[in-house]
């Protein structure tokens, strides 16, 4: 097996802003490193890439990254990012968001960014809980799981954000867990190369607020659980709905290129007689 390339991760970080504020065992660091490695492998320029985040644990990542970075309001990262991309389509725009950020208050922006197929790569750090406000249930918290606002168990049905964004029109959709860090890196890299809206769900452990409340053990045990519950997309195709219950389907779930939004607008400009 060939030695993995040495990635100069530190080059992409604002070292003066570290250490980060994430709890011990939090999976966000693994997801962040997967993103950095993907950016490195695809050769995106640090000067021409904007990282946008909303509010929540995951969204603090923008402050640690040495790019032009925008830490926005809760749920609205994709709307800010849309303005950036439309105003200057030459910029690479990456959105880091969380499950509460993207699926609750930001749900409308998520489906519309996917519908437009705008050239933004959205990485959702899904820890199935509101971490920063200390453990309330999110739209991705599993049914029957416990949270500080679901002391008798959650009765809501969680979203499948990959199915949602695919149905809404995203041209690239993928999922991996922090156990599958190298796969996650590859999937994000492919998302960055896709000319259109890319949605990558990173399933991330939160031992402090989700794990403890649901007696799932420490970070190691939670990641082990991810390994046991994950099914590659190729294998999932032959499985029944019953067999897939409670499983995490990982890999590239959808890739169907279609016209990117700002390029489509270039045609509007041409039709109107303007020049860019």
């Amino acid at each position, binding site marked *: 097996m060939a030695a993995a390339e040495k990635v100069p991760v530190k080059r992409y970080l*604002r070292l003066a*802003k570290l250490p980060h504020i994430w709890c011990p065992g939090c999976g966000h660091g693994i997801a962040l490193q997967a993103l950095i490695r993907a950016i490195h492998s695809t050769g995106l320029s*640090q*000067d*021409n890439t*904007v990282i*946008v985040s909303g509010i929540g644990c995951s969204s603090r990542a*923008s*402050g640690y990254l*040495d*790019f*032009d*970075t*925008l*830490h*926005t*309001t809760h749920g*609205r990262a994709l*709307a*800010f*990012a*849309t*303005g*950036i*991309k*439309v*105003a*200057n389509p*030459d*910029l690479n725009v990456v959105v880091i968001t969380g499950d509460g950020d993207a699926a609750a208050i930001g749900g*409308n*922006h998520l489906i*519309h960014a996917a519908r437009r197929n705008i050239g933004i790569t959205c990485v959702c750090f899904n820890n199935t809980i509101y971490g920063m406000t200390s453990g309330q249930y999110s739209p991705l918290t599993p049914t029957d799981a416990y949270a500080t606002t679901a002391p008798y168990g959650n009765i809501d049905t969680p979203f499948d954000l990959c199915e949602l964004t695919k149905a809404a029109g995203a041209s690239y959709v993928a999922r991996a867990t922090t156990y599958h860090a190298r796969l996650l890196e590859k999937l994000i890299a492919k998302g960055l190369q896709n000319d259109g809206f890319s949605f990558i769900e990173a399933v991330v452990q939160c031992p402090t607020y989700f794990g403890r409340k649901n007696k799932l053990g420490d970070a190691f045990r939670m990641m082990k659980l991810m390994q046991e519950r994950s099914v590659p997309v190729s294998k999932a195709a032959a499985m029944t709905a019953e067999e897939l219950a409670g499983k995490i389907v990982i890999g590239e779930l959808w890739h169907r290129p279609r016209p990117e939004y700002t390029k489509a*607008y270039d045609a*509007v*400009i041409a*039709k*109107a*007689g*303007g*020049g*860019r």
Partner: protein
Amino acid sequence: MPSLALPARRKVLMQGNEAIVEGAIAAGMRFYAGYPITPSTEIAELASEKLPRDGGRFVQMEDEIASMAAVVGASLAGRKAMTATSGPGFSLKQENLGYALTAEVPCVVVNVQRQGPSTGLPTSPSQGDVMQARYGSHGDYAAIALCPASVGEAYRLAVRAFNLAERFRMPVILLADEIIGHLRESVELPDPSELTVVDRARPTLPPGEHKAYRPGPDGVPVVPDFGTGYRFHVTGLIHGEDGSPTSNPKVVEQAVRRLTTKVTDHIDEIYEAEERDLADADVAVFAYGGTARAARRAVREARAKGLKVGLYRPITLWPFHDERVRAALQGRRAVVVPELNLGQMAREVERVAGAGTKVVRVNKVSGEPLTPGEILAAIEEVF
């Protein structure tokens, strides 16, 4: 390539909403994001038609909140950006409007006011968002809001709104009302070459030496555009000079106060008002926006009847210039304040008018404009 500008110095019949778009484009607007809402929709429609003719871009966003967010993003990417809305939409924008204030992002937000509260009367005029324009977002800050009283002024103030936004790095509110938004009148627009257009200052120091949020001597920071190599951080959290969040009490205190002082320290540069027939006036009428048109006529008719009345019309509604207003109103027997609300500006006038000057409120919230006759009747009553 077709020009965006209208032919120079030609008299044109146009609507207030159209004039706002023409003025914005003349000031350099090249990005518009919005969500349709009556009575502001013509602004979005004309922007969608005109912007791509010169490489500008228009997006109809999924909601009002997203529109305000996209405007902030576009401005940080270096484009002059605008959105337009009416009362309910303006409420939705307030969180991200506060973000633009805190992150010091230049942009223009047009509010063509309609009768409220809530969905209210979508096609009827109102001046009910005066206080929302000042205090709508949370926390402490100073607002700039400009208030046109004619179609020609809607054009001029759209230019000025962009200039002030770029100069002070903040959102500027163009607080129109349905009367002006839907009014059609003949206007002579200036030649674009005669316009003063202000562009935001860009850093002169190279990346590494420039601090993204270090305020200049005038209290205004020079923030670089995204994609130009500065790799800086923008946040709605209270931040220090490098843009990074801080909870250092001294830095926080300074940062929050500066959001107000950068406006109040330059109030004479920002403030504009029209004064008419005030020199010998026993009674003043304080009126703004669409209502000022009726007030102007009421003053003229009162003068014809031999009553010594003058008009004070704030064009800059916020910041409120205590000294200027006090100087103009003090010593008058009474100040008549006609408004299409239940007395939002009258309270400010009462605050500065001084003892001995009676403030007479003339309010209407029926969805109809105030008439010159109604204002004249109030003037006659105080004589």
